[in-house]
């Protein structure tokens, strides 16, 4: 009982605070300033999402097969050292990756997508690899003993059982990706970074926030989207969120 009344009291306080914030925003004219940037935000958010979608799907298309190949028993000898190379790769800051890709591919969307893909690759590859390696040897023995071919083992047993871990990797990677896309503005690929960096340069807080807040919202939305897909796609028996 006390906890419930505390909760409802908290809800009231929150509502009042929100209302007060709204009143303040209206009075100081911040809302109007924000609305001024709305067409820009719309245009740039689409550009932003396009960059995320391109680099994210490219990264998934490369990283998942790569993780699968690395987890095959025949690759066991090289897998760990290759994963180490990828690990070292992630320690390179994304900004440096973008700068490097700009020096090879010039400016615009192409080098941005390339740089973002490289930066997104690792968490997905690592989770795919670890997820597949983590499938219990007993399951693999049972699958082999019942007469599944290596491909049947991969698609009917290994991947479904590793899917939750793979999706966790995709989720992390895409959230980072959305948050990194603003840097792509620096090599001329647009996105919400345009408002953020211009806002910083002009010391225009509202402009900066008009870029930053939608970026944050996009990250949350993309994360929730992937989580929903994972919830629906991962089989119930191996899905901790549906247990």
């Amino acid at each position, binding site marked *: 009982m006390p906890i419930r009344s505390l909760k409802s009291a908290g809800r009231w306080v929150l509502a009042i605070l929100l209302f007060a914030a709204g009143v303040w925003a209206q009075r100081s004219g911040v809302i109007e300033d924000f609305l001024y940037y709305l067409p820009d935000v719309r245009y740039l958010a689409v550009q932003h999402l396009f960059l995320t979608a391109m680099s994210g799907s490219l990264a998934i298309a490369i990283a998942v097969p790569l993780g699968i190949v690395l987890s095959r028993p025949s690759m066991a000898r090289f897998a760990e050292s290759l994963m180490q190379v990828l690990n070292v790769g992630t320690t390179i800051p994304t900004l440096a990756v973008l700068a490097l890709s700009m020096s090879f591919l010039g400016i615009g969307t192409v080098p941005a997508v390339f740089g973002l893909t490289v930066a997104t690759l690792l968490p997905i590859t690592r989770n795919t690899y670890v997820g597949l390696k983590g499938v219990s040897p007993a399951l693999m023995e049972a*699958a082999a*003993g019942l*007469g599944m071919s290596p491909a*049947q083992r991969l698609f009917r047993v290994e991947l*479904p059982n590793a899917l939750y871990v793979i999706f966790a990797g995709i989720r992390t990677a895409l959230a980072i990706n959305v948050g990194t896309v603003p840097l792509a503005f620096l090599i001329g690929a647009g996105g919400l970074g345009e408002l953020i960096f211009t806002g910083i340069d002009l010391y225009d807080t509202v402009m900066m926030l008009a870029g930053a807040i939608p970026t944050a919202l996009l990250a949350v939305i993309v994360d929730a989207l992937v989580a929903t897909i994972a919830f629906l796609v991962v089989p119930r028996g191996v899905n901790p969120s549906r247990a």
Partner: protein
Amino acid sequence: MIRLDNLTKVFDTPKGAVVAADHINMEVPRGEICILLGPSGCGKTTTLKMINRIIRATSGKVFLDGEDTTGMNTQDLRRSIGYVIQQIGLFPNMTIEENITVVPRLLGWDRTAYKKRARELMDMIAMDAEAFLKRYPSELSGGQQQRIGVARALAADPPVMLMDEPFGAIDPINRAVIQDEFLKMQAELKKTIMFVSHDIDEAIKMGDRIAIFREGKLVQYSAPDDLLSAPRNGFVESFLGEDRALKRLNLVKVREVFSDEMGSVKPDDTLETALSRIDDFGYQNAILMVNDRGEPAGMITRSVARTTRGYCRDHYQTAPPVAQLDDDLRKVASLMFANDTTWLPCVDARGRVCGHITQRAMTHHLGSRYRSRPEDSAPLRSQPETKE
């Protein structure tokens, strides 16, 4: 039928070659359970897994139903062999129904056929199809999971089954239940089964034949009773344990040892009749009273019969515990010890008295295998002795 011909496995390890299975030759007749038994690292599991090529044989051949499997496609071979492992290995991403029907689906059965088969299998393992088929393995207890594991192995009705310590991870009470259920199923299905165990009691209970392994070699391969009564060497003897004569109690049924010659009285007989029958049959202490339906009703003791006049129905004591004809001697011995008696009346499936079993007859039956002198192995007329 499973026949192994000079099956050998050599593992290359950093410390040099290790012979895990050394020219194993053995044959399991159709419809029998053969238990591979031995301490860990003795090569029993390696031998088993070479049959379905989970482990590749270094040399030697495996014959199933007289056919050399060397040329067979590995996937086809495995689909024709039921396989149960200790870790159960149910696929957590699949429902129970999907798990059970894995092999039929691999073999391309149509949907109605394998759905029907799933229900048949659930009936066979005495689990409710409606309640379980749509659930996931993680929602089942260990014992239930292993039943499903067995059902999955039986799904495509393979003639041969390989079982690698299938009941090893289940608690003792459930294990005994599952073993009994499995034996009941096997009595109908008559699969040819190779079964790895490290539990001598399980081997005696389940096996038609037992193969004892040591350091990659097959040391002795014989029926459980022969194994226990005539271990080939010191290793087998010590592996079986010092109480191996007691273990044989498990293997003998009351049916084989009981005697149908026994005296009894009816409730309407006089105590005088009872006393004379006690003397006629040479009983020391008491005689069984049997009611009209042939069920044991009570005991008339010698002292009562001698000192009192009247009818048996007024002067009996409670009936002793009874042995069923299909009980094993271990249970009978336990009943005797628990009730401080040296004999028990035997009853048939309908509960009617059909004879008695004595401690003397039991020890004699077991002992006869160890004695070589012919005069001792002659059948002895056994008698009920005393009952307090």
